[in-house]
């Protein structure tokens, strides 16, 4: 969509908030990358760099009691849903102050107090879970909704098929958000299926499917708003396909270059979510200095999270048997 149209669709204030959130997700992940490469963080991490507009554009419409189910690439979803950077980073560090007390880590991070129902180490698994949570929401009649994020890789799994069908036939208040970044690990979506149009698959379930530019936070904002409104008013589920791209490797350790051309990566970076939002703000009259002030604010937030997580205590070895049941 052209920038002119855009400026009319969304207030500068809202766009400014989006910009800051997108930037927070970006800088957070770059910090995690740095810490991980320096051997500071245990386990494995999958970074969200490049896809931030999706999480921000979708979650900005959610209230705390609305629930989000996320994936192995879920730091951004957690932050977008309102989980403090401190709690997320401390969890990645395996600290007591992490959102799961250090028991979970990147792929098993839970913050129900913010309506964040977890990242997940099992591809596809969040889709049945989120569908059930949507059933719970529907039965409680509190007009809360559930958002389930998953990648293109999950689309060919039985978990997707069985759950989306249930969501449709039960007319549940859920939004299935597919982050189609064209690859599952090194596996190009075109190698995994003959139908790479995820939105089109909604028809198989008699459900509404929409495709949107995942680099454009405003476009995502609009599509998500409509879907969430529909869900809140018992209008049933929507499958949203967000076309997006990860700039980094599948996980830290994967250069991400063997299966993707430098050109492809460059093309996508031209349409960077941060750049786009920033350009619009300037075009809408915001000054460089205001933006720089915002950038610094976000940087401070990340630095504070690092300091907090680093200083936090490790879990106690004696606690190993707690919380099994």
């Amino acid at each position, binding site marked *: 969509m052209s920038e002119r149209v855009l400026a009319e669709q969304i207030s500068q204030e809202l766009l400014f908030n989006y910009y800051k959130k997108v930037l927070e997700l970006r800088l957070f992940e770059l910090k995690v990358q740095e810490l991980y490469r320096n051997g500071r963080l245990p386990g494995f991490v999958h970074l969200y760099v490049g896809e931030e507009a999706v999480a921000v554009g979708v979650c900005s419409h959610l209230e705390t009691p609305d*629930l989000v*189910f996320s994936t192995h690439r879920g730091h951004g979803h957690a932050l977008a849903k309102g989980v403090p950077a401190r709690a997320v980073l401390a969890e990645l560090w395996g600290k007591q102050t992490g959102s*799961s*007390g*250090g*028991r*979970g880590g990147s792929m*098993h991070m*839970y*913050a*129900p*107090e913010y309506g964040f*129902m*977890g990242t997940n*180490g*099992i591809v596809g*698994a969040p*889709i*049945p*879970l*989120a*569908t*059930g*949570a949507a*059933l*719970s*929401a529907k*039965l*409680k009649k509190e007009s809360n909704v*559930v958002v389930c994020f998953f990648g293109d890789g999950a689309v060919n799994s*039985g*978990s997707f*098929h*069985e*759950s989306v*069908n*249930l969501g449709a*036939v*039960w007319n549940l208040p859920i939004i299935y958000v597919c982050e189609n970044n064209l690859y599952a690990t090194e596996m190009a979506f075109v190698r995994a299926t003959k139908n790479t149009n995820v939105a089109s698959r909604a028809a198989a379930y008699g459900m509404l499917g929409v495709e949107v530019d995942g680099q454009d936070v405003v476009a995502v904002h609009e599509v998500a708003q409509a879907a969430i409104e529909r869900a809140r008013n018992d209008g049933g589920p929507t499958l949203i396909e967000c076309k997006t791209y990860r700039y980094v490797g599948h996980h830290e350790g994967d250069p991400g270059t063997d299966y993707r051309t430098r050109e492809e990566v460059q093309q996508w970076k031209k349409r960077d979510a941060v750049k786009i939002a920033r350009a619009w703000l300037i075009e809408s009259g915001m000054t460089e200095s205001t933006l720089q002030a915002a950038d610094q604010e976000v940087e401070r937030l990340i630095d504070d999270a690092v300091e907090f997580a680093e200083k936090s205590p490790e879990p106690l070895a004696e606690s190993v048997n*707690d*919380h*099994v*049941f």
Partner: protein
Amino acid sequence: MSEQGRVITYADAGVEALREEMRRDASIVYIGQGIGPRGGNFRQTRGLWKEFGDERLRDTGICELGATGAAIGAAMAGTRTVVDEVFLDFALEAITQIVQQAANISYMSNGKIKAPVVIRGAMGSVRSAGAHHSHTFYNWFANTPGLKVVIPATPYDLKGLFKTALRDPGPVAVIEHKSLYNTKDVVPEEEYLIPFGEARIVREGKDLTIVAMSRMVDLAAKAATQLATQGVSAEVIDPRSIVPFDRHRITQSIKKTGRLVVVDESPSFCGFAGELLAIATEDCFEELHVTPKRICSLPVPNPFSPILENQMIPSVDRIVREVHDMMKQPRRKC
């Protein structure tokens, strides 16, 4: 079961547990196949749909993975659920959700998220159901941290344990037996619950201890009756729940009798019977008079032919024979 009550079937005992708890807790939702108007393949939900309707008794198509995951997700979101796999065999379609999500969630979330979901399924051999419909699988569930596992052998136990499961904060596998649904038992009118982790002394005895679960309890009891007429006094114990497990009461009995036989419908390797022998060795090493014994199903898929299936599954005759062999053995010289 001393309390006076009415004689009802195992299937109806489950229905009563559900009806009472679904009345008490309006949040409980039941998900499965054929559990609505049909009342359950085994009549295990008969009449519930009439009372609770489509909202709370939710039939699904054939999608155990989606339905079980949904039951777990709903539970995580605060709606207590029961997911009925009908045949426990079909739980395999969904076991990734049961093990990776339901069983792990409390621990992974540092206790912040619980999944109060009852996973229900009917196990075991019944009338040549064949290889695809006869698995037991409780060994697998019991080997999964975070999952509680109850295995009721009687209508009385099923009702009391099921009700406890329906109030448990976390996931509980209620493993019934297909051959037991029509068995009858006295069940009190008044409400009762049976706590997990309390074994039941089915029959007292002094010469040996027979541990059995589910349908094997009845076989063990019948064998004990025969043995009594032949001068052998067998104590029969049913753990009833294997997670948590009543190690104390069972090892007390073994210490008393000095002899242990485990009757187990599962294949033996890495199974419950072996666990019992291990426990006996760990806790009753000095007290055991003779080598304890496992009487398990043969390690073969369930054959269709009745002749072959009867050969596969433990029988009263086989128990009696093995016990006599054991009683003939000289006591260990110590």
